[in-house]
Structure formats: structure tokens, C-alpha cells
């Protein structure tokens, strides 16, 4: 028990970040679930982080209210953003939403009231690990209930063939907008939690590379199912910690090693596990069954001879 407590204290920050990254990965996943590559989550997280920090520090609002603001403000921003950009498809939507994220980041860099590029420091540490995991759990519950429902089928249909889905009476634009708004709320909530977990926020923490990280979490974990995003976030958040121990042994700095290994993991997953890490057990089962099937007739022939 004492050992467990020690582990918890040593890795508290990693444990918290697994949850925060899971929320961010889920914010990308919800748009992917209806086939949209929307990458505005870093911008939405920044809005949530700054709004909640200002809410607790300047407006003295209670933390739950600040978190509500962190989720609702980006969700509100997502509506006027989504109406025009969701007309774009594929990589064009990705570019437009990345552009939105950069606008938010540069806006914050140039906003003196929040200290520009230096960001806000000495934010009260109000987010505890149970709050982070409660948010993850509520989100997973919501996605679990949507899966297999009328709305879940509509999202899958839009992902697979949007024009065909529309001929079934599915208003695809509304669904895509709803998922963008939900993703924005999740990213904003993650940002609000992060700001009150790490004492500080700065614009450069919400740049292009951050949203790429979120996408990689979702893809490496598996973008077909909602728990894939969580698995990817957990795996790729723990991995650098393991590498930190390993780095001195191979004589590479931990920072570059992390980028190298992340890239390698992404490459391997795309090549060999296109449905992500969560499909690994199924793939292993299928391979074992295939090998058994290949052996069985040969054995039978041998016995007959």
C-alpha cells in the first residue's frame, strides 16, 4: 500500500496528464466519428484554459463555475466557426481549423492583459486528479450511450457515405456541427482542468504541435471506437516517462528521443494496425486462429496417410 502511495505521488503529474490528454484526444475523436478531420482543439483548449484562469483569478468564481465557462465558451465559438468551415471536406477542413487554432494562439500572444507570450502564472491549483477522471468518465459514458443509438448510427452513416446518409433523412450538417461543438466543449474543459492542474498557461502550449499530439493519440489508440482515444492518450503519455529512464542508456536526450519514438509508433500503427492499438488483441486472436486453421488440415492429412 505504501509503495502504491509512493508511485502515485511520484507520477501524479503523469496520471493527471493521461486524463487531460484523453479528453483532448476525445475532442478530436468526436469529429472523426462522423468523418470530419477538425483540428481546432488546441485553440478551443486555449480558450477554455484562459477563460477559466481569468474566471478563478480575476472574477473569483468558484472552480466548478470556471470549468463550466471553460467548456461553454469554446462551444459557443465553435458554432459560428463550424457553419462556414464544415462546408469544407478532408484536408481543407483540417487546414481551416488549424488556422483557427493559430488565430487564437496569436491573439493571446498579442493580448497584454494576459501577459502575451509569457502567459498567466500562479493559477491556483484547484483541479485534482479525481475531477479530471470524473470528466473522462462522464464523457465516456455519454459516448457509450450514443453508440448504437439512432444518433450513433447517423454519425457512422455520415462517416461512411455522407450523401447516401442524407437521402435517409439524416441532416448531416447538424450532426457535424453538433460534434464540432461537443469537441470544442471537451477541449475547453481539458484546457480549464490543465490550467488549474499545472499553475500556468501560455499561448505556445496550444500551438500546432499540440493538436497534432491530440490527433496522434486518437489515431494510435484507434479512431474507430471511443475508447481508442483514451488508450492512445494513456500509451503515448506514459511512453515518454519510460523513455526518460531509458534515454541515458542509449545516449540520446529525452526530448528528441520522445519525438523519434512517437513518430515511430505512429508509423508502425498506421502500417500494421490501421484500426489502432485497441485492435491489437483482436488481430492477435485472428492470427492465432488463422495459424491454427492452416495447421489443422495438414495434421489431418498426415494422420490419414
Amino acid at each position, binding site marked *: 500500500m505504501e509503495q502504491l502511495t509512493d508511485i502515485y505521488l511520484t507520477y501524479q503529474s503523469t496520471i493527471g496528464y493521461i486524463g487531460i490528454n484523453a479528453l483532448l484526444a476525445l475532442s478530436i475523436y468526436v469529429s472523426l466519428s462522423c468523418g470530419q478531420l477538425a483540428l481546432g482543439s488546441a485553440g478551443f483548449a486555449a480558450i477554455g484554459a484562459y477563460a477559466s484562469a481569468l474566471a478563478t483569478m480575476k472574477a473569483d468564481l468558484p472552480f466548478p463555475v470556471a470549468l463550466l465557462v471553460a467548456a461553454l465558451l469554446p462551444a459557443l465559438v465553435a458554432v459560428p466557426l463550424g457553419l462556414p468551415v464544415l462546408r469544407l471536406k478532408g484536408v481543407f477542413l483540417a487546414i481551416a481549423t488549424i488556422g483557427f487554432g493559430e488565430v487564437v494562439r496569436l491573439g493571446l500572444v498579442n493580448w497584454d492583459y494576459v501577459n502575451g507570450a509569457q502567459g498567466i502564472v500562479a493559477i491556483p491549483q484547484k483541479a485534482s486528479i479525481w475531477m479530471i477522471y470524473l470528466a473522462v468518465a462522464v464523457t465516456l459514458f455519454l459516448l457509450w450511450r450514443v453508440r448504437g*443509438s439512432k444518433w450513433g448510427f447517423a454519425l*457512422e452513416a455520415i462517416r461512411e*457515405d455522407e*450523401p447516401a446518409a442524407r*437521402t*435517409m*433523412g439524416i441532416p*448531416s450538417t447538424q450532426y457535424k456541427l453538433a460534434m464540432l461543438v461537443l469537441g470544442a466543449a471537451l477541449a475547453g474543459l481539458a484546457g480549464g482542468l490543465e490550467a488549474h492542474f499545472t499553475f500556468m498557461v501560455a499561448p505556445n502550449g496550444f500551438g500546432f504541435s499540440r493538436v497534432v499530439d491530440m490527433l496522434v493519440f486518437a489515431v494510435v489508440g484507434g479512431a474507430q471506437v471511443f475508447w481508442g482515444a483514451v488508450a492512445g492518450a494513456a500509451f503515448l503519455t506514459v511512453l515518454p516517462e519510460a523513455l526518460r529512464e531509458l534515454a541515458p542508456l542509449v545516449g540520446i536526450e529525452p526530448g528528441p528521443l520522445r519525438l523519434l519514438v512517437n513518430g515511430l509508433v505512429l508509423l508502425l500503427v498506421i502500417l500494421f494496425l490501421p484500426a489502432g492499438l485497441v485492435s491489437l488483441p483482436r488481430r492477435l486472436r485472428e492470427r492465432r486462429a488463422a495459424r491454427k486453421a492452416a495447421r489443422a488440415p495438414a495434421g489431418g492429412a498426415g494422420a490419414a496417410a
Partner: protein
Amino acid sequence: MSALLSLRGVERTFGGLRAVDGASFEVAAGTVHGLIGPNGAGKTTLINLVSGLLAPTAGAIELGGRAIAGLPSHRIAGLGVARTFQSIRLFPELTARDNVLVGQHLRRHPSLLARLLLLRSAGEEARAAGERAGALLALVGLPDRANEQARHLSYGEQRRVEIARALASEPSLLLLDEPTAGMNPVEVQGVAQLIRRVAADGHSVLLVEHNVRLVMNVCDRITVLNFGKVIAEGTPPEVAAHPAVITAYLGSER
């Protein structure tokens, strides 16, 4: 009989090409209406115009007296139009049953709250929908393929799942775009019976088809298109004897 669907001077151009060139005809309620014509006559374009995948460049389309030309396709579906596709467009990763469940979108009215609170009514609604989907798959002759992914089904099976998916919205007008393409004669026979049965249940059918025997057997009336224009219309025997139709299909003697 009153017209369920009526087209007046419908035109659709693609650049310089007039795919549909002033087509006018009516589909009476509760009938099977054939739409035939040589390749490139504009049949599929016309289906796309009625279902809202394309907007006409001119002309009027009315469904039950209501103008639908140019409405978005999900609105037209909401008014009671369902369709299948010439190039099959099932959702390949979903099972046959789930494809039909998607088709039920307009007919399902579950409560989000009941679903979030894990109420029994939510489970019952989903089970009832699943049973309806199973019944539709049985209707098209695929009762034991419900759990198969659509991409693993044979060509003929996929076409029948598409019909089941279209019927799932309980449409007043069903648009079938070459439903027997690639089917063997036994399967074609099954589709012919299915179409008659669907019509007997009160759905109107607009059938685009190359299989002339099927069209002659199941249709109440037939409209013939060529180069985007209506060149003949009438009952199957009338159309079969129409000189313009014979010329369009076989060419003139000189």
C-alpha cells in the same frame, strides 16, 4: 388517380450537356412506374433530381402537390422519398442490420434522456427497431445475413439490403435505380415479386431498369427517355409498340 410525383419541364445541364431536357411526366399514387431508355438517356440524373442529390436547372418537381425541386436531400427524404443507388452505396463497414437501422432514421423517435438514464424504455425502443430491421431483411429474402458486414455480402445481396434500407423509412415514393443490375435470373424474379409486394403495401415505385422483361412485367405505366427528353409514355404494351421507342432502342431501318 391522383399524381404523387409530377415533373414539369425539368431540365438539368452539366456544362454544355443537357442530361435532362424538359422532361414532364407523372407517377400516380400506389403504382409502379417504369423509367427506361438507352444508356445516357438521363434516367439516373432524373432520379438524382427527384431525390435531391442534384438540383434541376429549370422546371418544377412536386411531391403530393408540394414543390421539392432543389430542396436538400434530407428534407426530401423527410417528405417520404427513399431511393437505392445504381452503384451500390451501402455503408460497407456496418452490418446488414445496421444499414437498415440507419434507414429507419426518420421513423425512430427515441428519448435521449431515457437513453442516458439507462431507462428500460430506451432499450425497448432499440430492440423494436432491431426487430423491424430484421423483418425488412426477411422481406427481401436475407433473414440470416443480418450480422454480416455489408462489404462481405454478394452483389445481389447488397442490392437487396439497399432496398430494405430504403423501405425502412416507410417512403410514399421509392426510387429504384437499376435494382437488378448484376443479378442472376432467379434473383431478378425475387426482386420482381418484391416490387409488386411493395406496391401492394401502398408505396409508389419509380423504377429505372435495363431488364426490359422485368419492366414489362411489373410496371403499371412506363415513361421512355432518350437524350433527356420523354419520347413515349403509356402502359407496357403501348410502349413496346411505340415506333419512337423501337427506333431509340434498335435504330431506324434506314
